[in-house]
Structure formats: C-alpha cells, structure tokens
C-alpha cells in the first residue's frame, strides 16, 4: 500500500507542523554526508546549492556542457507566487485552489498547499540573488496575469523568466562549487542507480567526453532530471531532454506515477517537414489578442492549401472562429487542453491550413485594426519577430499558423510528501516527479515547483532521512557498485554492437508518430491497444535493426541518443498502459469514451480519483498498478466548464 506520508492536521498547518517533527542533522555532522544531485535545472541547482550551504557534501551532475544550460532556461512566461502585491484578492489558499482545480482534481492537496505557501519565499530568494525581475516605475516588482488566472500573481523577466531564475540558481551553485562544497560533473549522464539493501546509495555515470563509466557513492540521491516529453520525438523540450535517469531508477524500484499525463500546448509553430527536429512555443499570451479560425468548409480549406485561394479571398462569413463559437464566455482564452483538442478536431475534419493542413490560424487582423500595428508590436514584437524568422511569413500581414505541441509532462516518479520515491534515499524533484500539477499544469507553475522543491522542501526532508542513517560512509567497495557498473557497461557495448539498417532517429521518429497519433491529444481503447502492439514491434526493430556507430571511449552522440531512445520505447509502452487503465478523461488526458454531451472531458471521480503508480516487474513483463487514493477535504470537486 502506498503511504503518501501526508501529515495529519488542518491543511494550512501541515507543513509547519511537519517541519517541526522532521529530525535534524547536527551542523557538525552534516559534513559526514554526501548527497548526489542529478540534473541542474531549477530543481537541481537550487537543491545542490541549498544543501551545500547547510554543510552537506554535494556531487552534482548534468549532461550539458555547463549546468547553466538545463532546459529550465527556456521557460518564457513567468513564475507564480501568492504575494498579493497587487491587492487583488490573491492568497495562499487561492493559489492552492487554482492549482488543484487547474489540475482537474488529480493532485495531492497537501503538496499543492505547501507549494503555494513557499511560493512567496521563492521570489524573495531570487531577488536577493540579483535576479532582475520586471519592475514598476516606483521600483517595486511588477506582476501580470497569466494562463487565465483572475489575479495578477505572475512575476516575470520579459519573456526570459526561466533564464533569469536559472542563472540565479546557477550563481548560488557556483558559489558552493567555489567553496568546495559542491563537486560539479558536467557532460556526465546518469545511466543507473545503485541500491544496497533496498536503499539508494549511488549512481553510475558515463563521462560523455571520455566514455569512462564510473560509480559515485552518496547517502542520498536526488533526481532533478526534468520531463519525458521527447518520447514524442517532436516537442518543445531541448534535444537532450530524456527519461533515462528516471527510467533506470524506475527499473530499480521507484514507482512511476501517472505516466499518461502530458501537456500539449496549443500555440506552437507547426511542423514543416520530416527534417524538423523540435517545435517552438509561441507564448500563450498571444491568445489575448489573436483570434483562432479555420475555413468553414473542407472545400475552402483544400483550395487554400493548394494555393488556389489566398487567405484574403476567404470571406468573413466563410471563417469559423470555432473557439468563440463553442465557448462564448471564454472564447480564445479557454485552457490549454481545451484549445489543443479543438485544434485537432478541426484539422481531423480536413479544415486545417498551411501546406500540410496540420495547422490553424491565429489572426491579429482585428487587433491591429483596433489597437494599431504599433501597439501590437509593443506587446508582442519579439514573438512576431521569432515567428517571422522561423516561418518567413510576416504575421503583421497574414495570420500566424499554429498547432499544438508536447510541452510538459505532469507524470513522473511517484514521491511521498517528503519527495522520496519508493526507493528509500532516492528523491525526485521538479518536473521529474508527479506530485503537484495533477492532470494539467497551469502556466507559470513549473518554475515555481522546481524552485520550491529545491530551495525550500528538500533541505528539510532529506535531513530527516539522513538523521536516521548513522554516520558510516557509504561502502564504495560494496559489490553492488561493481555489479551495476558492469551492467551499464554491458548495455553500452550491446548498443554499440548494433549494426542494422535504421538510424536511431528513424526509430525515434516512428515512436513519436505512434505516441502522437494514439496517446496524444485524444485517446481511445482501440487506438491504445494498437499503439501497444506497434511499440512492442518497434522495440524489437530497434534491438535488431538499428545502427549505432563509433566506440565508447570518445564523445559519441550516436550512443547517447541510442540509450535514450531505448528507454523511451519502454516508457512509451507504460504510458499507453496507463492511458488504457484510466478510462476517464481528466486534464490533458482525454479518453474519447469519457466525454460530456458537448464533447468535453468528463472525469469519473468514483472510479479514478487516484494516482496510478506503476511498479516495474522485469523485461517485457506487465507492470503492477498501485493506487494512491486522493482525498479532497478542502475543495469541492466540480466539472470544469468554459461555455
């Protein structure tokens, strides 16, 4: 039975009480412990720095050439915090409530409330570090409303909030590297977890420059390794984002929570061809002024696609502003999941636009008429320029083409209230855990969670575990280190022995197509069953017909990719299993069998008000499902409606 370890007592007092009840490690004893931190995005950098400040020895790892490049850096919009600086009615409880509701009632109440509580400390911390947030003329911090929130609680640094927050955390990390408390390993990839007597005691890494496969021991291991959106091949994630660290930990006993929950962001630049390597997000804020439409009929859309008609030839009466038509009160500002599904629907009907037909228009003509081109430029200039640069189409003169793209994964390693996985001593922070966003994440909440976990949660909870361990150093001569290292080495050589006819990208792209088609914006039983078969066959194809070049003892990007895709193939199947199991729609998970009369997502609280946590059972064995019931004592479960 899964024990979430949520403390008893009133919601608002749980975290304070829990902090008092957690065991402490004496300052003089902290230096006897070593903590491994994998990943240096917001969660990893903030955790590594904060733990080193407390006196622990930290070893930090990242696959990039510098910790500053982790993909948190690409977040655009902002970071939420319940500061109520705007005096507009925000509060910790309101941020908690919005996040629970936005997640379609599939997140754990206590975790989300804690997130809202510490959100205010994050902003203080970042400002003290010198993060240059946007400010008002009076010199105080500016806020904006974001993602349909009714209060202005989002702090931002132009469209580069993630960059500035990460550089802040990176500076704190650098300070500890300089102090000798953090040993930093750049260009290292974690390839396995070492457990001794069921406890996490170290990791195996590959040095991506020399190929050396090495063991690192520690009293606790923190995975801060981000999301797994690249299972779809095309996503807004960085090229290197992968599930490998989390997946290998999963195979060592860490349960995987809600793997089918993925967020598909509605406003991205559409795919132009098979060469495409990644997708680019256009900020959600564009929907404040842009109108989404497609031609009313398939015939008109076809003529437009073939170039027989120009966009301006389509009369106003022949344009279907489908979001405004279906959701008169929210219009173009419906939540991400609803906007994405509707775009898919009109494209599936054959009314899509652009050469591929897989796009819808986001039109600023009315906004330009109403506000003038200069005002539109002042608001969205950098986004319009980026669009122009990528597509070579001028969005001031013709509508943008947009289409949804995979953006974030709410699922991840299952963790308890202390952020510990089902492997004692192994923790998961930030996007790589499942805990705070339920089935759908709200805008500007990812940065908040990463930093909350790293700065303000783990420094307390990891001490409680370490205090119970004793002071013995981890036995690095324990046979499990060499055994696990050898397994990793064997796996690397197995990959390098593959000399088939397909490239790793060939397989990855195929996997992406399967996931997108059957486990993307809409899922149904028949499709998911089909996908499962296709993925199993693809996995066989990978291990029999892929080619991996070069050798281990060098920088080898073919080998890196191959290892990651092998793990994505296994994860893909689990996502499909999870989506099959969850015969309800919630947030980003839309099961076609479970919809309201109006075609909206319909939850089944009676049967599916739980977290699905999957336990690995061995190669090609079905995983075992464990359930954590979700109790809602402070919010009332309602059906979301945006009519």
């Amino acid at each position, binding site marked *: 039975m899964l024990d979430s370890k949520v403390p008893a007592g009133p919601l608002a007092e749980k975290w304070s009480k829990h902090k008092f009840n957690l065991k402490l490690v004496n300052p003089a004893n902290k230096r006897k412990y070593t903590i491994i931190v994998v990943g240096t995005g917001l969660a990893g950098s903030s955790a590594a720095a*904060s733990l080193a400040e407390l006196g622990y020895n930290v070893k930090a790892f990242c696959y*990039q*050439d*510098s*910790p*500053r*490049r982790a*993909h948190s*850096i*690409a977040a655009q919009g902002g970071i939420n915090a319940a500061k109520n*600086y705007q005096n507009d009615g925000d509060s910790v409880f309101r941020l908690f409530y919005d996040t629970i509701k936005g997640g379609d009632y599939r997140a754990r109440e206590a975790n989300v409330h804690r997130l809202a509580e510490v959100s205010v*400390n994050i902003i*203080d911390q970042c*400002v*003290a*570090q*010198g993060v*240059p947030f*946007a*400010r008002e*003329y009076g*010199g*105080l*911090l500016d806020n904006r409303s974001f993602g349909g929130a009714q209060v202005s609680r989002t702090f931002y640094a*132009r469209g*580069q909030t993630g*960059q*500035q927050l990460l*550089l802040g955390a990176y*500076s*704190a990390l*650098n*300070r500890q*590297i*300089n102090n000798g408390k953090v040993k930093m390993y*750049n260009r290292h990839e974690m390839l396995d977890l070492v457990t001794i007597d069921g406890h996490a005691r170290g990791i195996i890494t590959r040095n991506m*420059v020399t190929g050396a496969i090495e063991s690192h021991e520690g009293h606790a291991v923190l995975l801060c390794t981000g999301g797994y959106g690249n299972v779809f091949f095309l996503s807004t994630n*960085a*090229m*290197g984002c992968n599930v490998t660290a989390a997946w290998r930990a999963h195979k060592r006993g860490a349960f995987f929570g809600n793997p089918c929950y993925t967020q598909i962001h509605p406003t991205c630049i559409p795919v132009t*061809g098979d*060469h495409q*390597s990644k997708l*680019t997000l256009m900020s959600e804020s564009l929907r404040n002024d842009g109108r989404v439409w497609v031609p009313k009929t398939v015939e008109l859309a076809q003529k437009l696609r073939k170039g027989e008609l120009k966009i301006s030839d389509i009369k106003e009466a022949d344009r279907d502003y489908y979001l405004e038509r279906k959701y008169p009160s929210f219009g173009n500002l419906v939540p991400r999941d609803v906007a994405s599904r509707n775009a898919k629907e009109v494209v599936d009907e054959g009314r899509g636009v652009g*050469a591929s037909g897989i796009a819808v228009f986001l039109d600023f003509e009315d906004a330009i008429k109403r506000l003038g081109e200069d005002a539109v430029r002042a608001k969205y200039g950098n986004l319009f320029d980026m669009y122009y*640069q*990528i*597509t*070579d189409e001028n969005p001031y003169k013709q509508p943008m083409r947009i289409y949804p793209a995979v953006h974030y994964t709410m699922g991840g390693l299952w963790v308890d209230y202390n952020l510990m996985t089902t492997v004692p001593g192994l923790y998961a922070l930030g996007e790589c855990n499942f805990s705070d966003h339920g089935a759908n994440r709200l805008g500007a909440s990812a940065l908040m969670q990463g930093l909350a976990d790293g700065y*303000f949660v783990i*420094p307390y909870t990891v001490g409680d575990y370490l205090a119970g361990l004793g002071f013995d150093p981890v036995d690095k001569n324990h046979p499990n280190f060499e055994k696990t290292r050898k397994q990793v080495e064997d796996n690397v050589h197995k990959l390098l022995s593959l000399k088939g*006819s397909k*490239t790793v*990208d060939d397989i990855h792209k195929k996997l992406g197509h399967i996931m997108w088609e059957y486990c993307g914006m809409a899922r149904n039983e028949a499709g998911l069953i089909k996908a499962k078969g296709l993925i199993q066959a693809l996995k066989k194809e990978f291990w029999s017909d892929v*080619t991996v*070049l070069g050798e281990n003892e*060098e*920088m080898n*990007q*073919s080998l890196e990719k191959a290892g990651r895709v092998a793990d994505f193939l296994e994860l893909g199947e689990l996502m499909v299993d999870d989506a099959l199991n969850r015969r309800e729609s919630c947030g980003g998970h839309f099961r076609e069998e479970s919809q309201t009369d109006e075609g909206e997502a319909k939850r089944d609280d009676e049967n599916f008000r739980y977290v699905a946590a999957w336990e690995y059972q061995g190669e090609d064995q079905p995983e075992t499902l464990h359930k954590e019931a979700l109790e809602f004592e402070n919010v009332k479960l309602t059906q979301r409606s945006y009519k």
Partner: protein
Amino acid sequence: MSGNMNLTLKVWRQKNDKTRGKFITYQANGISPDMSFLEMLDVVNEGLVRKGEDPIHFDHDCREGICGMCSLHINGRPHGPKQGTTTCQLHMRSFHDGQTIVIEPWRAAAFPVIKDLAVDRTAFDRIQQAGGYVNVNTGGVPDANGIPIPKVVADEAFESATCIGCGACVAACKNASAMLFVSAKISQYALLPQGQTERYSRAQAMVAQMDTEGFGSCTNTGACEAECPVGIKLTNIARMNREYLTAKLFKEEEAH
C-alpha cells in the same frame, strides 16, 4: 518535405583534442530553406550514419536560442551571417543554392576542441565560480519588495543579464578575449543594490580567473559586440574596467 538547395560543406573534423583536425567536404543536397542550420546538419548526419560514417559532432540543446549551447563558426562568423541570432535560429533561407559553407568550431586556446565542432567552454564556468554571485544563503532574506530598484536600473541590469554564455564574443575576437562575457556578469551585479557589498572583490576575482584561463586582452575592436547573438553592449566592458580599476586603487572597505 525536402527542398531544392544543394550545398557544399567544408566541415572541421577532429577526433579529439590530441589529434590534428582537418576540413572534410560534404555535399548537402535537397535542403529546404525552411530548415534551421542545425537541422541541415541533422540531415547530413543521417546520411553519414546510413553510410556507416561517424556523424559530425556539434553542441546544441534547446534549439530556441536561449541555452547558449550551440556554437559554430560559419563562413568566418560566429553563429553565421545573420545579426542577433544563434546558429540554432539561423535558417537555410539565409544561404543560396550552390553555396559553399565553411563550418568550424570556436577557435580559442581557452576553448579546446573536444571533437569536431564541439569545444570545452568550462573556462566560462570557472570564471563565474570565482565570483559571479551574491553571497546569500537560502532563506533569511528580506521581502522582495524590501529592495526597491529604479526601473531604469533594473532594465539595464537585465540587458547585461541576458548573456547566454555561448562564447561567440571570444570566437569573434582576434585576441580571443572574454571581456564581453565577464563584463556582462560584473555589470549586472555592479548595477544592482544586491551586488554592492562585494562589488570590487568580485571584479578582481573574476578578472583574475579570466586571465588564468588564458583568454586574450581587449583591444577595443568591437567584434564581440557585433557578433553577440543577444546584443550585449561594449559599455559593459567600460564598466568592468572602471570596477576593476577602482578595486585596484582601493580596498573593498575604502571603495564604498
């Protein structure tokens, strides 16, 4: 969808930092003008892998122009022919059919080649570690609005803080100087109230580390500013020189 551009690439190939490198010529055919430069290289690499040849190694990650991991000297210019853009945001429509494109790694003694087009930029990390931070622990900090900062000052600090740490400034400089990079960080903190207490020790520590790493001196040519993908200004270097000079003339406590 493939395109109709046919290009000749002269690419620097180098097995590792111990072997000599050389240019190898490749044909890139059927390239679409909508591809990004790195997607063009992906296409070439897929072709190489199918032939059993080692693909061209290059650094890249976000492909959105923000992580700073991509590099490449393209026809003699860091990040290629367009102003204000990173290689990952450069598109093939900036080139023409039949063109020959020369692709090299960043060239600087402080950035040794790891393989092909990938170089080691950890010198930048070490400079930041020497003092690119405010000495503040997690927790125990004042309320965020307890430190009011005039908007003009905050905006100026932001302009310096947007540096993506790609190293194009070093690659563009005939002396392989890192002054633009270092000065951007020093400026951010020199401008903000949070950075005042360690203002001068920071400038000295970071400059000392920069020199230790073997970057060259600044001769005010301005190539760094011209090639910076995010528009970091030369005025940062002027500010850094002032900070450094003040630091040398006075002790920290006298300087304030």
